[in-house]
């Protein structure tokens, strides 16, 4: 335990931005990790090193640089596959991020397979990226989008799922493994068991989960899985879509172009092997390499340690925030069922005003609808404030947040 603590204390020095001050010379307290995380030198340098030494387009050329570039690109695929226990690297497709991953599924699987009258089930606490693509698809096809409701504790009401599955019309159930607003960890085992029992495919939005806990795709048993590099120390512009091979083999191509083809003739074309069939055009090579470096970094820490660190911070934060008069916290207090994301409202002060005032103290929190307006409607609020933690955050930083909330109270005469 001692050594893990010093591990977390030491790693702050890897993150140059954490040495920064903002506004009137206030040390930066970065608590918007659910939105995007900061990057360690190891990741930043891996990208520079790629461009300084190995940059070339991949797969196609025979010269030395192209060989090196292809090697580091494909090595990153293996690292990531290993990190979340994907057994077959052909199932791992690089995309820009979770949003593109889900849209790819909606186009390349959804358009051919969803028909009039079919039902797609999502949940009330999804991010817009796991709602809007399904609205577009179901509207186009004359299918229906249904929502698993959420109880007042911030947990999904699985009876709703039973109800929809009973219709026999459900083709896909899609849900996030962890809510980006409430931090709720979905009861994935139950959901997938129910879906499997009736042969319904499942998509997991892992954008908030993969960065913060050990995820084992093999064990989850879902059919589609999506996440983003930038929320887990990696660069912007790169993410992963995993699709079970038996499903992937049935999917139409998404983008047409270079690298995804086998033979192009004027009027017909055949497709490349998996996963390349779904990676058209020059990929984001350098950021794939950077993502690989992020995976190395997290692997060295160990995802169980990451989770333990965040549990400790979240517990502390929940305690301290509960003591602030007039502050309302959303979601469950059961720490085993939630990640390090805390949404709250402070008396009658609008979250933007809260965020603005704490920003004056150097504290970066998010305010707004967090791309989850359906959830906001469910909670009957316009917006919330949200603090979210990662490996480099400390209890002292939470104290700074609490102090800056006192400033809010003073300004708004609470």
């Amino acid at each position: 335990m001692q050594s893990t603590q010093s591990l977390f204390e030491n790693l702050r020095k890897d993150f140059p931005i954490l040495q920064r001050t903002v506004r009137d010379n206030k040390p930066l307290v970065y608590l918007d990790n659910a939105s995007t995380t900061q990057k360690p030198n190891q990741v930043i340098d891996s990208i520079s090193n790629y461009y300084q030494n190995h940059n070339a387009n991949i797969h196609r050329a025979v010269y030395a640089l192209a060989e090196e570039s292809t090697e580091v690109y494909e090595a990153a695929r293996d690292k990531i596959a290993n990190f979340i226990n994907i057994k077959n690297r052909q199932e791992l497709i690089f995309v820009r991020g979770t949003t593109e991953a889900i849209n790819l599924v909606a186009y390349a699987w959804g358009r051919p397979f969803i028909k009039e009258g079919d039902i797609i089930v999502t949940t009330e606490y999804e991010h817009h990226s796991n709602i809007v693509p399904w609205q577009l698809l179901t509207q186009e096809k004359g299918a229906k989008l249904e929502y698993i409701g959420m109880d007042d504790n911030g947990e999904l009401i699985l009876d709703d799922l039973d109800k929809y599955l009973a219709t026999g019309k459900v083709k896909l159930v899609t849900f996030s493994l962890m809510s980006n607003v409430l931090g709720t960890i979905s009861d994935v085992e139950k959901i997938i068991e129910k879906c499997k029992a009736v042969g319904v495919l499942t998509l997991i939005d892992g954008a908030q989960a993969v960065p913060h806990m050990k995820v084992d795709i093999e064990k989850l048993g879902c059919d589609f899985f999506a996440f983003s590099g930038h929320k887990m120390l990696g660069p912007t512009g790169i993410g992963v879509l995993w699709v079970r091979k038996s499903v992937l083999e049935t999917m139409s191509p998404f983008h047409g172009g270079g690298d995804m083809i086998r033979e192009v003739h004027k009027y017909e074309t055949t497709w490349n092997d998996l996963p390349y069939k779904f990676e058209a055009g020059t990929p984001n090579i350098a950021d794939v390499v950077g993502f690989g470096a992020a995976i190395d970094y997290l692997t060295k820490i160990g995802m169980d340690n990451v989770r333990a660190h965040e549990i400790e911070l979240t517990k502390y934060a929940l305690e301290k925030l509960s003591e602030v008069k007039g502050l309302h916290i959303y979601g469950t207090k059961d720490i085993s069922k939630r990640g390090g994301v805390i949404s709250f409202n402070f008396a009658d002060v609008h979250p933007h005003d809260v965020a603005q005032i704490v920003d004056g103290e150097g504290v970066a929190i998010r305010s707004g609808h967090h791309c989850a307006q359906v959830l906001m409607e469910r909670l009957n609020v316009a917006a919330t404030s949200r603090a979210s933690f990662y490996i480099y955050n400390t209890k002292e930083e939470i104290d700074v947040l609490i102090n800056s909330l006192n400033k809010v109270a003073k300004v708004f005469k609470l």
Partner: protein
Amino acid sequence: MSNADIYHEMIVDYSRNPVNYGKIEDHDVTFHDSNPLCGDSIDIDLKIADNKVTDIKFHGKGCAICMACSSVLTEITKGKNLEEVRKIEKNDILSELGLEHLQAVRIKCALLSLKVLKSALYTYLADHLDDSQDIDKLKEDAASLY
């Protein structure tokens, strides 16, 4: 200007007690818009007679900046003729509240209601005039506010 300084007495007061807040059931024109990024959302209802704004009310959800600016805007607007309303500029509102140096993200909170007002106005004019060139200009005006 430090972040907390923005929140002087007047703004905090307006945010708790907005002026001209509510609906006008028999409005002559109404318009709704929202800020896609923060979720602020404002409706403005107008009564217009003799080319003059005889009544104006707003409602919606927004931060203190948004509420204060909407209050000030409706106060400024009431009683003005349409030509004068057209000429209301962002600084007319910002300066009233000492918000001239607000940062870019918050400017959108401050000016949402002005954008809604201008949109309401061109909706009205489009229905009551056929001076289409002017309307295009107004449309552009509204769009280019931020």
